[in-house]
């Protein structure tokens, strides 16, 4: 399997994605942003379609759309009660735009499929390098603002009372999330990106005792999903996103069952 360059690239990219999703996922879950993450992935689809239309690399189109829209979403949904409705409206608008750009770009359905569901074959060494740099940037910012982000994500009231710049933190986190979505979409596709950004961390929440432990476990679960998904996809020739989605969902359901057993005891 590793004699093929595309599989080596896919494993390298998958490893980067699993690490970044494990870390960012912990904050996504703590901040109750699963739905918003789903929307950002749809915006990513639209951005990739725009990239194709404009003759850019899809990743650059994704980066442009997700980063700009994350700032807009952050401003629109500063009040949490408005977040769901604002997110739905933005989601609908961007899916529509994605379809329009694909149509304008005269690309066929298989191109849309590869953006939506990801592709293992299409990842070059150059793509891996670009993903690596973007991921390092995200990790560096998270490292620097970690204490503030942790306080605001796990105890928003406490952070606000302390006078932390919670709105700026929120927008910064959304931009980081946008970058993570764009990076991760390369393998699992924009439609299923939220799987890696939500399920491993949501599963880890039930087993870990500390935030650090949740992060390590989320990374491990994401790595297992991505590596097994890639291997199974190589062996069976079925889509990698199906395997990753199935593995992560199974982990999550096991965690829910385990939690139920714990509370029943």
């Amino acid at each position, binding site marked *: 399997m590793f004699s093929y360059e595309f599989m080596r690239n896919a494993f390298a990219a998958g490893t980067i994605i699993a690490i970044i999703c494990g870390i960012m996922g912990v904050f996504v879950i*703590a901040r109750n942003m699963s739905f918003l993450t789903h929307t950002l992935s749809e915006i990513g689809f639209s951005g990739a379609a725009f990239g194709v239309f404009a003759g850019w690399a899809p990743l650059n189109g994704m980066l442009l759309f997700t980063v700009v829209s994350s700032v807009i979403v952050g401003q629109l949904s500063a009040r949490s009660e408005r977040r769901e409705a604002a997110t739905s409206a933005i989601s609908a608008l961007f899916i529509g735009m994605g379809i329009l750009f694909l149509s304008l770009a005269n690309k066929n359905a298989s191109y849309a499929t590869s953006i939506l569901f990801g592709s293992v074959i299409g990842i070059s060494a150059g793509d891996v390098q670009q993903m690596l740099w973007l991921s390092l940037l995200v990790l560096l910012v998270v*490292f*620097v603002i*970690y*204490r*503030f982000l*942790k*306080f605001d994500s*796990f*105890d*928003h*009231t*406490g*952070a*606000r*009372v*302390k*006078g*932390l710049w919670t709105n700026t933190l929120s927008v910064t986190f959304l931009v980081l999330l946008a970058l993570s979505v764009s990076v991760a979409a390369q393998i699992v596709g924009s439609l299923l990106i939220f799987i890696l950004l939500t399920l491993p961390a949501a599963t*880890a*929440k*039930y087993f*870990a*005792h*500390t*935030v*650090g*432990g*949740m992060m390590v476990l989320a990374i491990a679960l994401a790595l297992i999903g991505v590596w097994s998904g890639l291997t199974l996809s190589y062996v069976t020739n079925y889509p990698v996103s199906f395997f990753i989605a199935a593995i992560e969902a199974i982990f999550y359901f096991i965690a829910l069952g385990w*939690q139920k057993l714990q509370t029943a005891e």
Partner: protein
Amino acid sequence: MTAAPILKLEHLGVTFPNHPVFSDLNLTIRQGEFWSIVGKNGVGKTTLMRTVLHQLRPTHGQVAYLPAANDVKIGYVPQFRNIDADYPLTMRDFVGLNLTGWKWPWLSRKEREKVQTILKRTGLEAIANRPIGQASGGEKQKAYLAQALVEAPNLLILDESTASLDPVTKTELLDLVIELNKSLHLTVLFVTHDIPMARKYSSQYLMLTPNGAEQGPISGLTQEKVWEGENV
């Protein structure tokens, strides 16, 4: 000898659009005093606390920290916190959240010792590794208090922190606060509806009414006076 003032409210007033909450409020709070802030719902107690915390800009007058703003560290304990029951956040982790700053993501040894000292002082040492989501109401309030105390504040605001607690737990928490008030010379602002508790623990009171405010030594505060104030 009279203790030095730590907080001064001078002709303080807050007006929401077409609705004055309170006006011309003057108050001097000294180091080590224990004030109870009482008054019926909607009279502006929380608005006053938000103004003191500089979360709300006053319409008139000013909030002055003495001798300088940098010398006053505030610890704030609200009634509720929105913390998911499933969060993998231990009591210890929760208390440590308040140690922010441009530092390494993990706590230093000195910071871990600081957290441990506060856990011990608030009686949480034995359950320090329990997830906060699984703690009882009283234990959670103690954890909120411990988090507020970890940065060694000299002004502690309890914003209806005891409202949802049973009488025994309430007494336990306030016994702890009064002990800190005495031993550390910690200034306390206790926002409450519980007049007997206010009388038991405070040294002074501020009663907000729709028509103004009244203040004085706690011996002057009676339940009847509060009812009268509420019916103005």
